């Protein structure tokens, strides 16, 4: 029964730029099976028959990263009906990406990933608009991120994830209309995870920081004295020899000349200790902390991220709550659980309160007030003016205690204006407390 239907009205890739043919009857018929009728698990807010319009005409989605996961995510979104996509990536294409980052070709090596990926998707999938930004996520501000309905991340760095997570959580400012859902995918060899973060409502990326496996590192005394592995020799070259012999030069792990130097230094060390296995690519792998990237794992995780995006945007099915881990390295195992918010999370665990104080209260009296107020009861609060980071009074270290002590006698209102926030840290707080001041 394997009958192949000839559909002559499907545009060929060459026709894709032809705007007349960017849609054809039945193009989204499979997708519409989920969007045109109510299912048993549908949210009450789901309105049958509107999904295609939402995907095609309203939704703006941001993809962060155009690497292994990013290529898969862009392809999946475009083929599931998302029509307005933007992609950000700060990297250019390296020849080693070509085995799995399938939107790129040999001739693209050296070009920005975001640009090439965006152009490829537009050329290949009719009617989709992909804009791109070749640069860092940190270049963009809240207004930019507010301009999307949903953000999907396929990043390879903890630092970039922490940044976007903190930005989206801080952006909410107690206003539910400023919430932008973040879907984060990540892979490491045969392992991966997909998670849905609803800033300020679910646990955030920072809440799970302690779950991360740390990058492999070796005791520095082993590196210095008793190397046994090729990795020990490479670490010796990069951690101990580089700062010693090339003191005033910053190591650039993307510079082949630097890698070559590290490789040769490590190789000499390995010979001395009769260790085999130091190669140029291992050197690169160790100093750049390269994790093996497997195309199929990227495909699995990206697929999961995009399905969640589809369900959240269309309201058509319940979505992931909130963490799916995929363990492909020991058989196949997936586990989905609700990662809990962490009370001492420095991003989403910051408590906010407002207090009214007399206009002539001194800083010292205000601190006593914080200690005595029954619903706060701090022990040794340290105060910082949130808008400027100016230290009002710090209990420790002595360096700052002495510098800020003269402020104790001053009036609080001479430092903090009406409506300003004071950031407070104290041993009795999980992380910190923001107090909004008004004077009476």
């Amino acid at each position, binding site marked *: 029964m394997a009958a192949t239907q000839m559909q002559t009205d499907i545009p060929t890739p060459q026709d894709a730029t032809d705007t007349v043919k960017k849609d054809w009857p039945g193009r989204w018929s499979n997708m519409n099976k989920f969007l045109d009728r109510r299912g048993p698990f549908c949210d009450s807010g789901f309105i049958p028959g509107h999904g295609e319009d939402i995907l095609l005409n309203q939704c703006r989605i941001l993809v962060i990263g155009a690497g292994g996961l990013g290529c898969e995510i862009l392809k999946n979104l475009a083929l599931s009906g998302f029509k307005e996509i933007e992609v950000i990536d700060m990297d250019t294409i390296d020849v080693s990406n070509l085995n799995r980052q399938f939107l790129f070709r040999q001739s693209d090596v050296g070009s920005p990933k975001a640009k090439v990926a965006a152009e490829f998707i537009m050329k290949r999938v009719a009617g989709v608009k992909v804009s791109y930004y070749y640069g860092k996520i940190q270049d963009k501000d809240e207004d930019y991120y507010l301009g999307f*309905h949903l953000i999907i991340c396929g990043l390879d760095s903890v*630092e970039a994830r*922490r940044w976007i997570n903190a930005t989206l959580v801080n952006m909410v400012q107690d206003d539910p209309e400023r919430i932008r859902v973040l879907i984060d995918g990540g892979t490491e060899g045969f392992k991966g995870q997909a998670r849905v973060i609803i800033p300020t409502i679910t646990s955030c990326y920072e809440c799970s920081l302690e779950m991360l496996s740390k990058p492999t590192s070796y*005791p520095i005394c082993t590196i210095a004295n008793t190397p046994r592995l090729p990795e020990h020799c490479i670490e010796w070259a990069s951690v101990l020899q580089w700062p010693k012999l090339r003191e005033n030069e910053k190591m650039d792990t993307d510079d082949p000349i630097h890698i070559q130097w590290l490789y040769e230094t490590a190789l000499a060390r390995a010979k001395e200790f009769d260790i085999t296995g130091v190669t140029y690519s291992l050197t690169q792998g160790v100093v750049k902390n390269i994790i093996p990237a497997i195309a199929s794992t990227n495909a699995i995780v990206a697929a999961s991220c995009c399905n969640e995006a589809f369900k959240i945007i269309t309201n058509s099915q319940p979505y992931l709550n909130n963490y799916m881990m995929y363990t492909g390295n020991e058989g196949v195992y997936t586990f989905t659980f609700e990662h809990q918010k962490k009370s001492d999370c420095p991003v989403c665990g910051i408590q906010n309160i407002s207090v009214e104080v007399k206009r002539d209260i001194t800083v010292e009296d205000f601190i006593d007030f914080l200690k005595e107020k029954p619903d706060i009861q701090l022990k040794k609060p340290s105060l910082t003016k949130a808008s400027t980071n100016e230290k009002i009074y710090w209990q420790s270290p002595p360096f700052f205690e002495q510098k800020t002590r003269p402020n104790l006698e001053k009036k609080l209102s001479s430092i903090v204006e009406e409506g300003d926030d004071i950031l407070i840290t*104290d*041993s009795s707080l999980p992380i910190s407390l923001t107090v909004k001041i008004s004077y009476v």
Partner: protein
Amino acid sequence: MIKIWSIKKDNSSAEKKKPKVSAAQIRVQKDLTELALPETMQMTFPDEHDLLNFNLSITPDEGFYRGGIFRFTFNINNNYPHDPPKVRCIQKIYHPNIDLEGNVCLNILREDWKPVLNLNSVLVGLQYLFLEPNADDPLNKDAAEDLRTNRKNFEYNVKQSMRGKDVKGVYFENVLS
């Protein structure tokens, strides 16, 4: 369920003052303001507005290194506490676990670092290195061998090095004052 489609088109109204402080900085701030520094430790900040780079001096009041002032630099990056602080000794000292370039062999600064540890844990670790130098994880092999084979001789060599004298031909920095 999250109501994505209730999002307003115009978001320009919300203009609230928010600190541009990273999660790393908030953690460092918490770590710093809750430190209980013993009298044997002093912390200074070359740039008061930069909490991520500071100096620490340790003046041990017992053990082999009593009477010296040992100076370290701390460099914390924006990935703290995922990444440990980078700590260096800025003097040339004779110590089994600190090499002549100032690298420090302390497990919690590298392979055993965890985000639940904090600056206080690192300070306790450093303090401990001066009270109980450890010959089993040597970074300065000669000093470690010295400590293992002849404690009296090691003690003498430490005293010599702290005065700025040489030990086996290597000159050290005077850390007494």
